[in-house]
């Protein structure tokens, strides 16, 4: 415990758009322990993918610090960044656009090795053996070494994407919706593979997804995002057993369980996600919240630790008091 591999402080990413500033990521703060998995959940447009890319500096953050093993990666120069990227990798959502259609499996997996001179002085055969080893690790048959991505199905393509990331021997991997484009039976294969790799190689994951059942299965800690901000952060068990933020509650109750009679009453949220363009200074969830009051319009609520390790950003929930419970119409989600 206490071995923090990554710490993110007050990270912001604003995009210019014709209608104003898009606050894609707006003051996000968290840390991940080595060998753990942090789940990031939220609906489309909540900024979770942008967050993942900012951490790898695939997108330049507008403001804030990303400290990886003691170094702020936002301050690194090009050469240092290239060095650092061996340690931080990403797996993408879409197995159909994340692989270069003009390259073979061998080329795709060996590219990071050759390009970063990870095996200096190695012969072609040695590099190829390393590729075969990686293919074996992720479970792709040797005979597919010369195949092109379009000849393979989604599950195999995703395995190649994982092998490419592993080729650098990373310590930390951002998984950006790695299974949401896959069929159920293939999804489980990939999830098990990622779990196995974590155990064997001591990897740290940041697991971005919209699928709550998957994130629950996979993560130690979970962050719930809404419109670029963290609304709730807690260890997975606590979050699922005792969700506090009204948005988290609605999300959890919207999960459809594959059980007869398992989906009786869900909390229905009004309306849809509001625009992330120049949001007013109030609770961003207020417009859809059943518990809103005047306080909710008085500024953006800070993320507070209301019980050990459980953080919530809601004007109505403070350490030791939960005003939501006192309000009328309160229905327990559990």
């Amino acid at each position: 415990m206490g071995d923090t591999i990554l710490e993110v402080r007050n990270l912001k990413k604003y995009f210019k758009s014709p209608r104003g500033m898009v606050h894609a990521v707006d003051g996000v703060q968290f840390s991940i322990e080595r060998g753990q998995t942090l789940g990031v959940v939220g609906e489309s447009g909540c900024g979770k993918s942008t967050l993942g890319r900012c951490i790898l500096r695939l997108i330049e953050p507008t403001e804030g610090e990303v400290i990886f093993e003691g170094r702020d990666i936002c301050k690194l120069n090009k050469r240092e960044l290239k060095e650092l990227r061996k340690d931080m990798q990403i797996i993408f959502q879409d197995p159909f656009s994340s692989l270069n259609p003009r390259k073979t499996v061998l080329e795709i997996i060996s590219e990071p090795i050759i390009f970063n001179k990870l095996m200096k002085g190695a012969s072609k055969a040695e590099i190829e053996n390393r590729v075969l080893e990686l293919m074996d690790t992720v479970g792709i048959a040797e005979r597919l070494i010369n195949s092109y991505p379009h000849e393979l199905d989604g599950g195999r393509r995703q395995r190649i994407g994982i092998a490419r990331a592993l080729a650098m021997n990373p310590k930390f991997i951002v998984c950006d919706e790695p299974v949401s484009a896959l069929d159920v039976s293939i999804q489980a294969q990939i999830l098990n593979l990622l779990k196995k790799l974590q155990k064997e190689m001591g990897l740290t994951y940041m697991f971005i997804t919209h699928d709550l059942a998957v994130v629950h299965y996979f993560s130690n800690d979970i962050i719930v995002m809404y419109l670029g901000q963290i609304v709730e952060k807690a260890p997975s068990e606590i979050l699922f057993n005792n969700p506090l933020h009204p948005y988290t509650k609605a999300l959890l109750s919207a999960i459809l369980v594959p059980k007869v009679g398992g989906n009786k009453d869900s909390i229905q949220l009004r309306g849809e996600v509001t625009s992330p363009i120049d949001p007013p200074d109030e609770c961003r969830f207020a417009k859809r919240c059943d518990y809103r009051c005047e306080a909710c319009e008085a500024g953006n609520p800070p993320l507070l630790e209301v019980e050990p390790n459980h953080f919530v950003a809601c004007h109505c929930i403070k350490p030791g008091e939960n005003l939501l419970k006192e309000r009328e119409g309160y229905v327990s989600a559990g």
Partner: protein
Amino acid sequence: MTAVTQKQGQSATLASRRYKKKSGFVESWNRLKTNPGAMFGLIVLIIMVLLMIYSFLFITKDDVMAINSGNRFKPPSAQHPFGTDSMGRDLFKRTIYGTRYSLTVGFFSVAFGFIVGVFFGTIAGYFGGWVEEIIMRVSDVMASIPGMLLGMVIVAVLGPSFLNLLIAIGISNISGFVRMARASVLSVKGSEFVEAARAIGMSEIRIAFSQVLPNSISPLIVTATARIATSVLAAAGLSFIGFGVPVPLPEWGALISDGRNYLSLAPHLTLFPGIFIMLVTFACSLLGDGLRDALDPKLKQ
């Protein structure tokens, strides 16, 4: 069992040699083969190239330049398949000799425009910002001048010669490729494999040319083929109005220009070079259409 020895690394043959690699080129060629129009175009072009090689080997400059005043305006015959011209020169030999001008102008002017245009177009599309702004505005200016006029100006400044003709048409080809390359790069640039390349630490310029460009090249090849046709026409046009290959040399446009004075007396003087120009442009267009289908990965099934 072989797999085990492979993994030990004592293999005699590499795994990548033991499993067949389906080359994209072979697949595209197989699709192209089934397209009769494209195959017709390809065969015509091959014949043209063979004729050009023949002319290099067997037709001397004297053959096509020597004046024979006793032999003027002969209609086509066994001895002179295309007849003779106003100076008694054999038109068949002159036309065949002319392939070297038309084909080289067509090929090299497009190659020139392709290399320069695709280079700048890729940079504009991939990097965006002020770089793109400058490249695109310059290309707009070039595109706003009609190709023929631009050719005339360039030849007028540099003087009429075959090389200058080639440069003139090459320059007028650039802006088209800049736009095509930019549009094509833009459509590929957002793919996740580009981000993946960035995540393994590749430099931007390398990503642009080793990852993005190969994926946007198909439509450019198609355009290039079609462009050969227009370039051949442009060369003929410039020669026709006297801005191309210097007069006695038998460039096709010059041949037509020469023959136009005797249109009623000896129509074959314009007819045969005209047919050759038509065949080459037609063949290029057909081949271009065929390539578009053959190179489209969406039609892979």
